């Protein structure tokens, strides 16, 4: 065991901290002091400015190779960056679904031409990717997708509907699963496609999430034509018909630590400690200490996980336990925040918005009921 950071890692942390402090101040000032939510049309534009600033500083995707706009950082450095990012109070990443969910699949399954053509533009927030998986009749049961892709000369014809697509109304591209073999069932016969949202026959309609922001969209495909060269390097990720395999690589990222690193929750817990210290109520004080412990436990568990990954292990079904922990931790933290605010909890503000967002955690990326099944069957080995 060695729970210390190396001098290089400490230097990396110091560099990130300095950059974040200076650039956040400049960005906030440019937004007139208080940027709007990234899930509104006005806020999204402001957040794109922030994303471009991150890219110019080479902080947009620190763990990627330099040729794609990253800085080749280790997993440990990535973790340090995330910690500093949220400690500094930097905003949620509007580019996250591309950078954290699609990119890992592109690194694993993409051709050199796709990697060269897609990744750098993604990191620079020139192309903005949303995830097109859920459909009106395919939520937790992703293998029941019905949207189709029909092979034609020079491309694909898409039909069907995706929905609950986060930030779909503001994005330029969608990555999604389409049934390319009409006789197939379940997870067979699916193809993972990369789709520009301005393709002919694609219609996007934004709608309000629980918190009222236009953070959701439904995407309609009506004989939409997707040319083979609509995306540099080609629109199929992996092989046609192998979409499920490619998609599963992404669910590991979504449930595991890449999407929701501990830094985010530790930062929230620290803010709650300050509120609880002022409140002076012994019950709330004890709950704040408990919530902090749960955030810290996620940090310690992550250090153990990253130790295994750094030694070459692949993320497995344990990612389901990680997803259960961070999503329920986020609810615990925000519930406590509302109790600390008391009657003012009903006011529209960062905590009430955070509470509403936290409630989505146990639903998205596979509901927590599904995650408990996965953990019981694949981690504990209980009978199906």
């Amino acid at each position, binding site marked *: 065991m060695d729970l210390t950071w190396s001098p290089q890692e400490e230097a990396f942390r110091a560099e990130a901290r300095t950059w974040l402090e200076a650039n956040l101040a400049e960005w906030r000032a440019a937004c007139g002091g208080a940027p709007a939510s990234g899930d509104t049309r006005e806020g999204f534009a402001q957040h794109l400015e922030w994303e471009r600033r991150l890219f110019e500083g080479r902080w947009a995707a620190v763990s990627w190779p330099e040729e794609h706009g990253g800085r080749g950082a280790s997993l440990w450095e990535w973790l340090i960056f995330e910690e500093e990012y949220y400690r500094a109070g930097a905003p949620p990443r509007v580019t996250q679904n591309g950078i954290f969910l699609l990119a890992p699949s592109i690194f694993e399954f993409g051709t050199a031409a796709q990697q060269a053509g897609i990744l750098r533009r993604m990191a620079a927030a020139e192309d903005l990717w949303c995830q097109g998986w859920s459909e009106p009749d395919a939520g937790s049961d992703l293998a029941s997708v019905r949207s189709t892709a029909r092979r034609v000369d020079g491309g694909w014809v898409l039909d069907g509907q995706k929905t609950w697509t986060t930030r779909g109304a503001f994005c330029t591209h969608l990555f999604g699963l389409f049934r390319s073999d009409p006789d197939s069932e379940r997870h067979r016969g699916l193809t993972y496609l990369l789709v520009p949202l301005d393709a002919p026959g694609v219609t996007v309609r934004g709608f309000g999430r629980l918190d009222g922001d236009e953070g959701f969209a439904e995407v309609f495909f009506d004989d939409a034509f997707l040319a083979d060269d609509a995306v540099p390097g080609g629109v199929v990720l992996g092989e046609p018909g192998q979409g499920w395999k490619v998609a599963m690589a992404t669910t590991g990222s979504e449930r595991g630590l890449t999407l929701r690193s501990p830094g985010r929750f530790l930062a929230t817990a620290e803010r709650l*400690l300050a509120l609880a210290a002022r409140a002076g109520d012994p019950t709330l004080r004890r709950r704040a*200490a408990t919530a902090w412990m749960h955030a*810290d436990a996620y940090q310690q568990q992550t*250090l153990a996980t990253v130790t295994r990954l750094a030694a070459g292990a692949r993320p497995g079904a344990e990612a389901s336990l990680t997803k259960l922990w961070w999503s329920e931790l986020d609810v615990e933290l925000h519930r406590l925040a509302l109790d600390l605010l008391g009657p003012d909890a009903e006011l529209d503000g960062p905590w009430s918005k955070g509470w509403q967002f936290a409630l989505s955690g146990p639903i998205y990326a596979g509901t927590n009921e599904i995650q408990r*099944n996965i953990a019981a069957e694949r981690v504990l080995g*209980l009978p199906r």
Partner: protein
Amino acid sequence: MRFALSPDQEAFRDAVADLLAKACPPAAVRAAWEAPPGQLDRSLWGDLAGMGVLSVLVPEADGGLGLDETYLVPVLEACGQAALPHPVVETAMVAAPLLGADIGIVTTDLGGPNLPCAVDADALLLRCGDRLVRADPAAVALEPVETVDRARRAARLAPGADLTDAEPVTDHPAEVGRALDRGALGTAAVLVGLAQAMLDRTVAYVAERHQFGVPVGSFQAVKHHLADVALALEHTRPMVWRAAWTLARDLPTRARDVSAAKAMANEAAERAARAALQCHGAIGYTVEADLHLFLKRTWALTRAWGDTAHHTDRVADALMP
């Protein structure tokens, strides 16, 4: 950064786990329920001493292994997994750093009024005002108590017990504080082991037990109970290991880290015990099934060396001074 046991630490823990699998099956725990005072299995205790378990924290110059808590804590987890009745936390974690190697069976009142295995002890480490003293059990009035877990083999100091002849150990507040933290963390490690054992036994049981023509472990309600136990353990064990590191280096976060580990281990073990009994159903609600040996130890240890409220308040004090 490397948050994992070293090959040495792993090998040490595995060797002790192998020994306990052979020498401390549930039948041996049951035997400790029945054995007369002074008849706790000394041969197993001798084997543990021979492997160095009892002197991990004693300097090499004094006949110990000269290692730190990051070696001992995983071993204590293995002891919990076997529900070992012997006072290994009290002897190896708390007494040995103060009293040295080859001290026999030692118990203490630092973790609470009921001294575990007091009826078998060769020496007592007792609190006397602000001091710690070493007393001979034969020279101190002890009153056996009937505990729910009879393998606790506990006794209390008689009211007004005379400690004037006891040998002074330390009156240094920092040493007393470290002894309390070692006891709390060692007990947290034992609780993690108990929770793991209850989870493993229950997973095996619900795969075997059939109702409605299928294994009861195929029902989602049962799966979710056990997934919750796995979830708690997955996030509690790292807290216990981290506190071992903090304690070994005496870092300024010691109170926070040790208390967070004990508070979370209490909760994980309580959850494991509750789920294990519920998922065993009526078969678990007997003294014939072995599960009760683990349940009853859990109920005792979650309140020994500080309960959840005590340790949570200590975390709160460290975080919000």
